[in-house]
C-alpha cells in the first residue's frame, strides 16, 4: 500500500491544473498523479491534428519529466483505476496496486460513447480519444478510400475534414438535423455543412444508422431510409461518456457523471472530481451537466486543487457555459453561451456579404447570454466573461450589437482598470 496526501487520477487538463493549484498553496504535501496512459501528459483536443499530420505525437506534450520533478509530483503511468473505497480512503488499480490517500481527485475524463447499433460490435471501427487511437486513425486514413463518420460533433467533423483532405470519399451521418447541435443555430450549421459539401463530403443530416454489417475488410452502415453505405473506414464519434466505472462499487453519488458541488467536492468526504468526468452546475439554470470541454476542465481542475489544498483564495465554480472554437477548411467558428432564441431573448443575426460570414448575438434584457460567429472573430474569452459577470450592457447595447469585438474589448479593459 502506497500513501499520498493528495492522489490525482488522470493526467490531462483537469489533473494538471489541480496539481499546479495544490503546489501554489502546499509546496511540500505528498502529491502523486497516477494515470492510465503510458505517455507524458497530452490533450485529447490535439488528436485531430495528430491525425492530420499537423502535429507530431512527440511535440505536443503538455509537461515534461522535469516539471514533475520540479514540483515534487510523483508521476505514475500505465495504471488504471479499478475501484475506490471511499470509507477507507483507498484506491485500487487494475494492476493490483493500492494507494491510501487523504484527498483524492478523480480527473479521468471521458471515453467514447458507443451507440447501441445492431452489428456494430462485429465490424471494425475507430474512435478518437487517446494518442494510440489517433495514430491508428492517422495510419488508416492514408489508405482509406471510402469513409463513414458517425456523429457530426467536433470530433467527427475534424475527422471528416482530414479524411476529405486525404482524398477519401466521406459520408457524415448525424441523427440531429444539423452539425454541431447545441453550439450553432441551423443557419450557421448550414454554412459549415456547405463548406463540407463543397469539398465533396456527403452530409446525411437527420439520419440514424439502424445496423452495421461486415463487408470484406470493411463494413456497410444501413441508414434508417434503408440505404447501405459501404466503408473501408468507420469512425464512431457519437459522443462521450464519463470514465467512472471504478465507482461501480458505490459510495460516491453519480448521475451521468460524478456529481460535484461548486468546489468540485463529490458526495464522499475526501473525494473531488473535475473535468469531463464531473457533473457540475450549469451556468444558465443551475442544473448539473457534464460539460465535456477543455476550458471547463481547466477551471474545474483549478478549483478542485485549490479546495483540496485549502487555499483561501478559492472561488466557487460559476457554472458551465457552452464554449466552442472550431476551425474547418481554414474558416473559424466560435460559439460562447446560448445560441437559441426564445421567450424574453433578443436575437441579432447578421450575415456577411455573399453569406461568407455570420454573427448571432443573444441578449436577455441588458445582459449578454451568448454569441456565435463564423469568419467574424470575437474574443471568446471576453464574451465568456461578459456572460459570466452578467455585465450591464444598457449604456452600450447598440454599439455592442454593431461592433461586439471593439465594444467587448473596451468594456473588459474598463472593468479591469
Amino acid at each position, binding site marked *: 500500500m502506497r500513501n499520498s496526501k493528495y492522489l490525482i487520477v488522470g493526467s490531462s487538463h483537469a489533473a494538471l491544473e489541480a496539481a499546479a493549484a495544490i503546489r501554489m498553496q502546499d509546496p511540500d504535501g505528498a502529491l502523486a498523479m497516477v494515470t492510465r496512459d503510458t505517455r507524458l501528459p497530452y490533450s485529447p483536443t490535439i488528436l485531430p491534428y495528430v491525425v492530420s499530420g499537423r502535429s507530431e505525437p512527440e511535440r505536443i506534450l503538455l509537461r515534461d519529466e522535469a516539471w514533475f520533478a520540479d514540483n515534487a509530483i510523483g508521476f505514475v503511468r500505465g495504471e488504471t483505476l479499478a475501484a475506490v473505497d471511499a470509507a477507507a480512503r483507498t484506491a485500487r488499480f487494475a494492476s493490483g496496486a493500492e494507494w491510501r490517500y487523504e484527498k483524492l481527485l478523480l480527473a479521468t475524463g471521458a471515453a467514447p460513447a458507443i451507440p447501441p447499433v445492431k452489428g456494430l460490435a462485429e465490424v471494425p471501427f475507430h474512435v478518437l480519444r487517446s494518442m494510440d487511437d489517433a495514430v491508428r486513425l492517422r495510419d488508416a486514413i492514408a489508405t482509406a478510400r471510402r469513409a463513414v463518420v458517425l456523429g457530426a460533433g467536433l470530433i467527427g467533423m475534424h475527422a471528416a475534414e482530414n479524411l476529405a483532405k486525404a482524398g477519401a470519399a466521406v459520408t457524415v451521418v448525424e441523427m440531429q438535423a444539423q452539425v454541431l447541435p447545441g453550439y450553432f443555430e441551423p443557419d450557421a450549421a448550414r454554412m459549415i455543412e456547405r463548406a463540407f459539401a463543397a469539398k465533396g463530403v456527403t452530409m446525411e443530416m437527420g439520419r440514424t444508422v439502424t445496423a452495421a454489417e461486415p463487408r470484406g475488410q470493411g463494413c456497410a452502415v444501413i441508414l434508417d431510409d434503408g440505404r447501405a453505405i459501404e466503408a473501408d473506414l468507420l469512425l464512431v464519434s457519437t459522443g462521450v461518456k464519463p470514465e467512472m466505472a471504478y465507482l461501480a462499487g458505490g459510495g460516491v453519488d453519480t448521475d451521468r457523471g460524478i456529481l460535484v458541488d461548486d468546489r468540485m467536492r463529490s458526495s464522499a468526504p475526501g473525494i473531488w472530481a473535475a473535468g469531463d468526468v464531473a457533473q457540475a452546475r450549469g451556468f444558465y439554470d443551475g442544473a448539473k451537466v457534464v460539460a465535456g470541454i477543455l476550458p471547463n476542465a481547466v477551471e474545474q481542475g483549478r478549483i478542485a486543487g485549490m479546495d483540496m489544498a485549502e487555499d483561501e483564495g478559492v472561488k466557487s465554480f460559476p457554472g458551465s457555459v457552452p464554449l466552442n472554437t472550431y476551425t474547418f477548411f481554414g474558416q*473559424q467558428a466560435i460559439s460562447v453561451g446560448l445560441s437559441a432564441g426564445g421567450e424574453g431573448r433578443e436575437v441579432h443575426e447578421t450575415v456577411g456579404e455573399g453569406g461568407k460570414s455570420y454573427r448571432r448575438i443573444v441578449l436577455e434584457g441588458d445582459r449578454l447570454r451568448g454569441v456565435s460567429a463564423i469568419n467574424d472573430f470575437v474574443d471568446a*474569452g471576453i464574451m465568456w466573461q461578459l456572460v459570466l459577470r452578467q455585465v450591464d450592457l444598457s449604456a452600450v447595447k447598440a454599439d455592442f450589437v454593431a461592433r461586439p469585438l471593439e465594444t467587448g474589448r473596451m468594456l473588459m479593459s474598463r472593468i479591469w482598470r
Partner: protein
Amino acid sequence: MGKSFNTIQFHADRCDGCGDCMTACAQAKAGTDDLAQSRIRIVPAGGGVYELALCRQCGDPKCVMNCPSGALTKNAATGVIDWDWGKCVNCLLCTVGCAYAGIVFEAEVGHVTKCDTCDGDPACVKVCPHGALEYKTVAGIFNEYGDKEDLFAPGLSACQGCNSELLIRHTLRKVGPETVVAAPPGCIPGMGTVGYNGKTGCKVPIFHPLLTNTASMLAGLKKQYNRMGRDVTMLALAGDGGTADVGFQSLSGAAERNDQMLFVCVDNEGYMNTGMQASGATSFGSWTSTTPVGSAMKGKSTEAKNLPVVMMMHNCSYVATASTAFLEDYYAKLEKAIEASKHGMAYLHVYAPCPTGWRFSSAMTTQVCRMQVLSNFVTLWEFEPGRGLRFTHPVDRPRTIEEYLKLIGKYKHLEPEQVAHIRKSVHDKVAFLKRFAAADAAAAAG
C-alpha cells in the same frame, strides 16, 4: 524567492488615441502599416477616452492552460508568454482563456498573435508621444535584491501599513553587511531594530545614539574604522525629529565637515512613536497632538522646514529626496549615495506617510506616497556638487492638492483658506527648486 517580471503599463488618462503605438507594433512585427498586424490595440471608449487590449503576460496564464498543443508557454526567464508557431494548430482555445483580448486571431494574419514585448524593448512604448505607455522594469529590483540577505531580523513590530520597515529592509539589503547602523530614538528603533528582550533586531552592528549626537558618533566611528584600514559604511536611520530638530546641530556639523556617512532621514512629519507631536518637518495645517484642532487653533500654523534644501546648502557630497512609491528611483539614488558616502556625506530624505499618526487606512500607504509625488506635494530630485540639482521624476501635470489632502485624516479639518495656502506653498516650493534646476542646467550647457 519567486521571480518578478517587467511589464507594459497603460496610463489611460494620458492616451489620446493617436494610434502611433499600433503602427509601431505592426512595423516592428510585420514591417507594415496594416494595423491588423499590431498586437497592441487601442479601443475608443467614447468621450475622448481610450481603453487597451494587450497581452498582460499573466502569472497564471489561462491561454497557456487552455492550449492543447504546447504552443504557449510562460518563459521562466523573461515572464513573457512565448508562442511557438511550429506547434500552434490555430484552434483558438487560447482566445477562450484570455479575458483581455491579449491573444487574438486576425484573418489577414492567418494565426493568433500576441505581444512579446519586443524582447524587452517594446516598440509601442518608445513611440508613445504622451507617456501613456510605460515599460516598467522595477521587477529587476525584486529579482536582484530579493535573493540578498535581509539584514534586519524578522518580526519587527512596526505599525500595520508603515513603509519605514519596507524602506529599511530594502536599504540595508543594498548597503550590505559591511555596515554600522545608528538608529536614534524614533519609530525605527521603536519597532525593535536596536533589540528587544536581550536580542538584537539587526544582523550588523547597530546602536542607539541620543537624538542629538547621531551624526557625530558616526563620524567618530568612521574615523576609527579608517584608522584600522577597514571599509565600513556608516548608516544613520533617523526620523525627521532626530534630523531636522534635535539632531540637527550634530548633523549640520558633520555635513559642514563632509564626514563620510550615509544619513537617511525617514520623514513622517513628526514624533509619531511618542504620541504624534509636531516636528519642524510637520506640514502646514496638520493635526498633531501639539498642534490640535479647536476653536482657536486649526492644526499647525507654520510651514515645514525644507530640510533636504537645507542640506543641499551644506557641503554634502550627495543630497536627494525619495519615495517608496518610486523604488527604482530610490535604488538609483541609494547607489549614488553609497558611493558618495565613501568620500563624504550623503544625505537621503525619504518620505514616510504614517497611517497611524496621519490617520489613513494602512492599505493606503503606497497610494499616499504616490500621490505626494504626483501632486507635487513633495518632489523627487537629487543634488551633486558638480552637477547641481536635477529632478528625477518631474510631474508636469500634477494632480490637484485636494486629491492628496483628502486621502489623509490629519487634514480633514482644513478650511478653504488653509488649502489655498498649501496650494500656494507647494507651487512656490516647486518654482524655487525649478530655478535651481534651470540655473544648473544652463551652467552645465554653457
